[in-house]
């Protein structure tokens, strides 16, 4: 029965076959495949960011008893398109006293880090731009590059608000990354692999959040908090801290450079939610309940990418919900929270998880 989900998406296979028939050169086939993948991913990223910004504005509006964008297209769905075109065509200011090279490089670093990380995510079986056997390690490494972009932006802007924002970002993101990685490690012990594809496969009999004896739930909570902080989202948005630092590290950025930071922020949100969905909620795996074969069969009919995006957007909604509910922490409270509470908890969680994985085995194998 589970074979059904494999039949729906043989696009990549079809593309490979088609290319092989017409090109006859394996190297060329690989190159064309890469280009197609990059193109698709770039298009996907742009659309995704616009959709996320639109969702953010609508979610915010409805939480605040407003309507949100309404006039540009039906229910304002082209609002972010208008914003993007406007931002792309605005004058791009490079202030006089900035470090020009670093100033112009910084938004690219942020954007590329987010963009590249997305290529490791398995959206559906075999729909994955790059398959890598240490994918999760790589993604964590690449996504931490983003902080260099933020630091560089703040430093090069020659603006004290930017500098404050950048210094906050450096401290915050590096600290919270520890908790996020430790939380993921606890699950990786159970899964026994660093390959995204295999992590998804390992959840065929149940999602790790349920199956890991409570370790999964704790790890998920830690990861959600830490990853919210990593994306600089409220309540951890002290990096931008609009009411304190005007706009933080991107105070001096305008037009397309600012748009890149803006896009990177939303792609990062999507990214951490995608990692969360993949590691804790079975990625594109449909939801199964024990022996209820009929129900499971119905769930199997839903295409896997719907499952994946459904899970990710549910998590994205939670992150947005945070943003429109919570106030912002102060910088010292933020660091205290990480080093005194979150990281020790993540370490204990990892330790307990390791012991359980070594001796306890799985209680819920039948799922």
């Amino acid at each position, binding site marked *: 029965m589970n074979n059904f989900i494999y039949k729906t998406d043989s696009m990549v296979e079809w593309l490979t076959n088609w290319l092989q028939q017409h090109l006859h050169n394996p190297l060329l086939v690989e190159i064309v495949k890469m280009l197609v993948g990059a193109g698709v991913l770039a298009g996907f990223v742009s659309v995704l960011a616009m959709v996320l910004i639109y969702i953010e504005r609508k979610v*915010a509006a409805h939480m605040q*008893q*407003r309507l949100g964008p309404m006039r540009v297209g039906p229910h304002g769905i082209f609002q972010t398109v208008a914003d993007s075109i406007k931002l792309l065509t605005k004058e791009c200011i490079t202030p006089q006293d900035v470090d020009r090279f670093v100033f112009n490089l910084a938004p690219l670093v942020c954007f590329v880090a987010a963009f590249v990380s997305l290529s490791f995510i398995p959206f559906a079986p075999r729909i994955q731009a790059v398959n890598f056997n240490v994918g999760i390690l790589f993604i964590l490494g690449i996504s931490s590059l983003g902080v260099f972009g933020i630091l560089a932006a703040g430093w090069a802007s020659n603006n004290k608000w930017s500098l404050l924002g950048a210094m906050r970002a450096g401290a915050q993101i590096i600290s919270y990354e520890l908790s996020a990685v430790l939380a993921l490690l606890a699950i990786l012990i159970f899964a026994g692999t660093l390959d995204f594809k295999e992590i998804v496969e390992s959840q065929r009999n149940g999602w790790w959040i349920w199956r890991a004896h409570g370790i999964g739930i704790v790890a998920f909570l830690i990861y959600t908090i830490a990853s919210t902080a990593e994306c600089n989202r409220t309540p951890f*948005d002290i990096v931008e*801290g609009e*009411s304190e630092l*005007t706009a933080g590290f991107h105070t001096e950025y305008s037009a397309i450079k600012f748009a890149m930071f803006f896009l990177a922020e939303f792609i990062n949100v999507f990214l951490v939610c995608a990692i969360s969905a993949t590691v804790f909620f079975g990625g594109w795996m449909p939801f199964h309940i024990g022996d209820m074969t009929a129900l499971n069969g119905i769930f199997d009919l839903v295409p896997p990418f719907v499952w994946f995006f459904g899970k990710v957007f549910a998590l994205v909604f939670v992150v947005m919900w945070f943003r*429109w509910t*919570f106030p912002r922490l102060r*910088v010292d409270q933020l660091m205290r929270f990480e080093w005194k509470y979150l990281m020790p908890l993540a370490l204990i969680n990892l330790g307990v998880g390791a012991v359980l994985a070594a001796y306890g085995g799985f209680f819920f194998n039948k799922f």
Partner: protein
Amino acid sequence: MSAPTTDTKAKSPTYQDYFINMGPQHPSTHGVLRMIVKLSGETVLGLTPHLGYVHRGIEKMTEAQTAVQITHLTDRLDYLSAHMNNWAWSMTVEQALGIAVPERAEYLRVIMSELTRIASHQLWWGVFGMDLGAFTPFLYGFRDREMINDIFEKSCGSRLTMNYICPGGVTQDVTGEFEGETRRFVEYFKPIIEEYETLVSGNVIIQERTKGVGILPADRAKAYGCTGPVLRASGVDYDLRKNHPYGVYPRFDFRTAVSPEGDSWARYIVRLEEMRQSLKIITQALDQMPKEGPVRTKLPPTLKIPKGRYMARGETARGEIAFFLVGNDSPKPYRVKIRTPCFSNLSAFPEIIKGWRVADIVTVLSTFDVVVPDIDR
């Protein structure tokens, strides 16, 4: 919780101190206040406010206008307490000229002023949330404020700068719907305050950010002449409506909201409590108000302010406003000095912010609830 660092100045070499300009255009200086902050890392070593970016010369302008014309300038001082400013000025003129005010007008003044107080605190509550990084309370505060604006609009046609209370009473009587609408608002708003409490007061981050932050001791508050919620949050039971009764305030049963801690949290809960007390006053005033009657004393065409000094004080949403009037037997005042609450309240701010973080500047300034045109006049 005490201040995170007490004597950073001694510890840090000077090359680590740096100065940042906060304002005049900054999202959380509530207009165009400018502050120069000396920092070591994120810790505030000192702060100097620079005022006057909306100094409009109102005191000079009063010397060229008649007493009744000046009323419209008082709206624009603290535009969130427009009714109370009008009232305080009207009291000054009435005192100078010995004008009596009809009883119905006195009640209308009380109701309007208390509604203004609620509207002002609602706006403050929303902006306070926004300053702390939560955007949603801002919209909730404005949602409820619109109802009060509707009531104002029906009484005088204006939403913000009312010019409704004038020497001799109020400019015009309210419409027949006024009482019902006001009562409906009171009924609507009572549970909404509890919603405010759940949405913001109960939030652990808000409490972490405000409790113990920016403590203003009672003796310093008194020395700086702080008034209003800022003073009452420092544990001084001082409210002009009680301690220096004017209008018909002595006839109402309400209590002054006082909190002894003097920190940002105290200033927060004092304002929430004041909203509740204002609702109480409004209900009583609506019950006691004569249903019919004149609302304005007939005034002579020119009001000559007799020679001498006159002063009236009123409790606005931010504290005590006082108009000091010097007359010299002419229709135009010889000198009007406006003592505004925000000016005095803000003067205590640089002292208490030392040792706190950049983010706390925003928090504490927000709980001081300054309105910059009120400072600058």
